[in-house]
Structure formats: structure tokens, C-alpha cells
């Protein structure tokens, strides 16, 4: 079980104080059968080369920090088993479509701004006082949005999305899915306020349906689905208000 084998790990390095463009570095790591790619990176950092920088925290696939490109695919490195790659070499790069800050660390401020732009919080015309208890929500109503609430903000979907790569204004899969999550929540009344971001040119209409975001998502959020659903809902609403301008729009 715990036999040690040796695997080659090639890592993209970028040290902004020393170089203008990234370079590559290869390490050889002895690994145990139950090691993930992140374990190898930590082994390198602890025992071979302390200058290698990357983000991680939970090592259980839920904090969303450790997303990187592993052999060209966006992955949570704490959920990518080394044995699945062995005996081939493993190539680790920072998530594509994002600027590199240092080594495997990307700049995610763009995503943070977009997240805020979709107003990911409950919006109501009137707040119910806490003393009056919870809002009732049936399991069926919960199901309507549950899927879209599973996003861990790991940004693998942004790395997978060619549209985001080419067009940085695109609000992008995860942020749209999260906006959609609140729109579908029976407690929320903020649909209108999110429309100008989500149903805009930089929002759903930028998406040409490549579908790769949903393929790489480790939490099965299916952001492509959120975008398609919003497209349909937005179109039907526009159509409705066109043929029945008197109808109440909500």
C-alpha cells in the first residue's frame, strides 16, 4: 500500500522580482499511494525548495484555494491523486485566463469584483423581523436553487472558459450562477436589481455555450445551466412584457 514511487513534477515558476516571464522547474518527488498533487507541492516546499509559492488550506476540496492547471486541465490539486498520473510526468501551472502574481498564485481580484456586482445576498422589499421566525421554504423550493449554492469560488470554470479568456468583461460562469442562485431563492425579491449585470451584454449574452465550465466544476454547480436558464427566463419575460405590457412584471 504505502510503497514509495517517484514522480516528476514540472512547475511553472514566475518570480516577478527576478524575471519578466515564467520559467519551468522540474522536481522529483517520492510519493505515497494516497498522495494528491497538493501533497507533492507541499513536500517540495517543505523539503526541497521553500521558494515555491501556491495557495491551499483545507485539503478536503471545500475551501476552493488550490485550483491549478494539472496537465492542462483546471483541477483542485487537493483532489487530484498522483497515482492517476503516474508514471507520466505531472505539469502544474497557475489557472489560465488569470494574471500570475507569483509561481502558482493568480490574481483573483477580478472575480471578487464580479461576485459583488451580482449582489449575492437576499434582497427584499421588506425584511421580516428576526423575532417573527424563519421564512418558510419547502424542500422543493430549496431544490430549485440548491445546486447553484454549492459553488466554492475555486474559479476552475473561469480557467476553462475561452470566452472569459478572450473577453475579460464577461461576468463569467460562477458569478452568474451565484446571482441566479439568489434569483431562484423563494426568499429573494432582487431579480430586477441583478438583471442589469446578469442579463447584460457582458452577462449571459456573452456566453456562446461552450459548456466547458460545467465539465470542470468540482462541485457539479453546472454554471452553463444557470446561464441557459437565465437566457430562457429573460427572453420569455421580455417577450411577455412586449405582448402584455400591462402584465405585472416581477
Amino acid at each position, binding site marked *: 500500500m504505502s510503497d514509495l514511487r517517484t514522480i516528476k513534477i514540472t512547475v511553472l515558476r514566475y518570480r516577478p522580482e527576478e524575471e519578466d516571464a515564467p520559467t519551468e522547474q522540474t522536481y522529483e518527488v517520492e510519493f505515497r499511494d494516497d498522495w494528491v498533487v497538493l501533497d507533492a507541492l507541499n513536500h517540495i516546499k517543505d523539503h526541497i525548495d521553500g521558494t515555491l509559492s501556491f495557495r491551499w488550506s*483545507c*485539503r478536503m476540496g471545500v475551501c476552493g484555494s488550490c485550483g491549478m492547471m494539472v496537465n492542462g486541465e483546471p483541477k483542485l490539486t487537493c483532489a487530484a491523486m498522483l497515482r492517476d498520473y503516474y508514471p507520466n510526468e505531472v505539469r502544474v501551472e497557475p489557472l489560465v485566463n488569470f494574471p500570475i502574481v507569483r509561481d502558482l498564485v493568480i490574481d483573483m481580484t477580478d472575480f471578487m469584483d464580479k461576485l*459583488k456586482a451580482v449582489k*449575492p445576498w*437576499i434582497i427584499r422589499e421588506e425584511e421580516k423581523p*428576526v423575532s417573527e421566525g424563519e421564512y418558510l421554504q419547502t424542500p422543493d423550493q430549496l431544490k430549485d436553487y440548491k445546486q447553484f449554492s454549492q459553488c466554492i469560488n475555486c474559479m476552475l470554470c473561469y480557467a476553462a472558459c475561452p470566452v472569459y479568456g478572450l473577453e475579460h468583461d464577461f461576468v463569467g460562469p460562477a458569478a452568474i450562477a451565484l446571482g441566479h442562485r439568489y434569483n431562484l431563492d423563494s426568499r429573494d425579491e432582487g431579480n430586477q436589481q441583478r438583471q442589469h449585470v446578469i442579463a447584460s451584454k457582458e452577462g449571459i449574452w456573452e456566453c456562446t455555450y461552450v459548456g466547458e465550465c460545467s465539465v470542470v466544476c468540482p462541485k457539479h454547480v453546472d454554471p452553463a445551466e444557470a446561464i441557459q436558464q437565465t437566457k430562457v427566463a429573460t427572453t420569455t419575460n421580455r417577450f411577455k412584457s412586449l405582448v402584455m405590457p400591462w402584465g405585472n412584471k416581477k
Partner: protein
Amino acid sequence: MNIPKHDVLLIGGGGAGLRAAIAASETYRGADIGVVSKVYPMRSHTVSAEGGTAAVMREDDNLDLHAYDTIKGSDFLGDQDVVEAFVKEAIDEVIQLEHWGCPWSRDEDGRVSVRAFGGMSVKRTLYAADKTGFHMLHALFQTSLKYDAITRYDEWFVTSLLVEDGRVCGVTALNIRSGNIHAIGAKSVIICTGGAGKIFPFTTNAAIKNGDGMALAYRIGCPLKDLEFVQYHPTGLPGTGILMTEASRGEGGHLVNSKGERYLSEYVPGKMELGPRDILSRSFIHEQHQGNVFEGPDGSYVHLDLRHLGEKVIDEKLPFVRELTRNYVGIDPVHEPIPVRPVVHYCMGGVHTDINGATPISGLYAAGEAACVSLNGANRLGSNSLTECLVFGARAGQVAAQHAADTDFADSASMAKMAQDEQKRIETQFFGNNGKERVANIRDDLRKTMEEGAGIFRTEDALKATCDTIRTLKERYENIGIDDHSRVFNTDLVNALELGYMLDVAEGLAHSALLRRESRGSHARSDYEERDDENFLKHSLAYQTDGDPRIEYLPVTLTRWEPEERTY
């Protein structure tokens, strides 16, 4: 010199920190709040909490029952006034979170569901499938985005608390991105940095849980309370320490030894799998001594068997457990039992505060796992701590904001000067001295000695040895050298600073444990097997000195519940 300043400054953006930030900003109009976090707030460790959060929600339950369960769970070391305030305010807090969008699991009639949890005599644990902490943290974080009064310092690492005339007036923090150290001024500072599980080798805790905030307070003379109480969770995966939530037992899972017996009938016949964690973890060790456990590459283990629950219940109530076991041990709990063993999980002790989260030092507050109010006493009941983050996060936020309302900022120039000194100190210590000691080696040795001396069972000799080892590790730490001397995103430096915090907390912990010559809750001394209310019905307070820490004691607050024998 211009430095950023905030009325209230949070260190930590986990459950406690974000709840406190929102509470502080709602305390009075115009309150200006800062949140410093070494990781983006939604990465905080609250995200990994699985099982649920406790509050009295149903007709068959009442406040006194929740209070009694908590106090008995704490082995009568919890302060009873604190517990009473907690159970009362818990209800509004979990409903508040519901209003903020937390997707609690629901009953058919639309009310939030509750499940059974260890040590709780009725169902009172709210949950969002088995990703409760994840959903709570994201609901809190996303809600916090709408408060314009909250300024975030994401990926800034606090290196020290600034003190002037005996009061805390801000912090120095390393902007990890740029490598610069800045002073941030504040009228009140709240420590919400979470626990310190990473000072042990096998833990459910994330990489960021190194006791930073506890050490920050300790270094300016604030005592750390009840540090010796460390909770082992009975069901972690061997090796990785990944948690199999207690909800898996709450939903009906069984613990089975290598003989195929549900061995808990010997230890907690009344509660079986729903006994409290300290007792369950000790039962494992007893079984181990009797040779009734399985042996694997990562040591002994027993089985957590969920098969009889069926695929539907597992997928609906415990989907994360299934995801984790499939990914990490290649086991599908629908068809196979899961190997589990006790792993370090939670620190009952922490920064000493009163019922409002105020520490003895003016301007300094603490909440969440980093603090010890003391709700959890000698053993925390599962699902009380997420609620604790909410209740005492909110309290600390309010009280800190009120304090800020009638305080002034300290002088900017002197704070900027302190930041310069701090930058110099760090550069000399870590870049200047060409030390030979590696961070990882000292850290590994620390973890090893903590397990040996301060593990599930402790003795005088082993603890003394651990105290000695920690002393030599601290000396070795003086001679540390790091590979990375650059500025931008230098995680080598961050790890070295964290190691310093870990050593301080470990020192306080081992000495407190050495002097507590009794067994209570999670603190089990093989050489003093009985609880000793006469001498030890009191909190320990560890103060840093130039030599070994000084341990003082503080009486426990009792209101309506007399200490009694703790059997289940």
C-alpha cells in the same frame, strides 16, 4: 504619515469574524470596520464544518435542556452564565442567518430541519446537508459584501498587536501580495483567528489553523484560558485526518470494532454512537489496548458503518461524506464501512474573555474558536461551536463598536514607526541571520512531541518531556533560516511566522496540562484518573513570561447547576 484606520478591526474573516464585522457595523451609524484575513474570507476554516449548528428550535426542547447538555458536556467547566446567554441568543442568531440566505435543510412544512448530535438530548442541530459551515460562511461572506462600511484586507497577515499606554490601538500586518508591513490603526481589535489544531500531527484542521491570534494576545500579556483542553474527534480518516462528520452518527451510523461489535455499549450504553466526543475517543484507545482494532498503514482504526442507512439517506443527508470517502480512500459508504480513528479537532481553550468577548486588555476582544468565553469548558458538544461563532461574534462586535465610540485613535506617526520596527525585526530574524533550521523540521518535531505528551491520554512524565522539547524547539527557532528572501507572495515567510505562533500556543498548552492534575472532559491524565472538583473546578490562565509560562486559576461561574458525576 498616513495609515489606514478603522473604528473596529477584525483579525479573521471566518464565521466569528464576519458575524462580528456585521454586528459592529450595525451598532452605530458611521462605524467604520476593517477585516484583515490571511486568506480570502470564504477560504476560512469555518468552510469545512460539516454537521450542523445547535439552537432550540422545537416544541420538545427548551433552553434549560440545551444549557444542561452543554454544561454536562463541558464536564462542569463551562461558565454557566455564559451558557445561559448562549442558548438564549442562539435562536435569533440561526434565524438571522436564515434571513441572510443560508440554505438550511427543510422539513416538508417549510421549517428548518434539526438532527441529532452527540451529547444533545434532543434533536436541535440545524444543518445544510453536511456542508453546514460552508453554507454558513458563504452566506455570511456574501451578505457582508453589501455593507459598505466594511473594508477588507484580503491576504494580509497580522504579525503583531500594537499597544500604547496599556491599550491595543491597532495591528501590524504583512500584505502577502506586496511583502510590505503596514500599521493599521483601530480603536478596538477583535481576534477571530480560529483554533490551533495544526500543532498536532493528525487533525481535521486546515493549514491556516496555527493559533495565530492566541499567540498575538499571549505576547502582549493577555492570558490564554483552559488551553489544555483539546478535543479529539472520534471519526477522522486515518492519515489525512479528513473529518467524517458526527452527523453520520446522528443519522444512525454505527461504530464497529475488528470483532464486528458495536463496542460503545461497554462505555456509553445510554447514548452509544451519540455519546460525547471525549468519551468516544477514549473508548477507541481502550479498544486499541485490547487489540480490537484494525491495523493499516496509517495506524489503527475502527469502522464507521453507514450501509444500513441506504443510498437515498446517504445522498440526501450525507453527500459530502460520500464524496470525500470516494475521492480520498476510494470507498463508497453505501457498500463498504469507512475506516476511522480519533483526530485532533477543536481547541476549547483560547484568549481569555468575559461574557462579551472583552479581554483584560483595553481595546482587545476575541470571539470564535480563538477565544475562550468559556462556553465549552473541558469538552465542546458538537454543533455548539458554529453557533458560538455567531452568538459571541455578534456580542464582541457590538461591545467593541461601543468601546470605539468613546475612544480615540492613537497617534499615526508612532504607529507607522512601530510598523517600520516590525519590518526590521522580521527582516533581521528571517532574512538576515542565515540560520540553518528548516521550518518544516521544527514543525514536524513540535507535532510529534505534542502527540506524545499532550495526546488523548497524558501523564506527568510525558508532559514534562514535551515541555522540555518545546523549550529546545523554541531555541532552534531562533536559528531559523528560510529559502525565500523575496517579497512578493512569500509563503515561506508566512509559514515561518506561523511556526512562531504555534510554538507559543504549544508551550502554554503543555504547561497548563502539566499542572492540571485531574481528568476532566477532554483532558485525561492516566496518573490522575478522577475529576477533582475540590482543587480544579477552575479555569487555568497561562501568562507568557521570559521563562516558562505562569499558570494562574480563575473560579468557574456556577448559576443553577451543581457539578455532578458525568455518565451517559
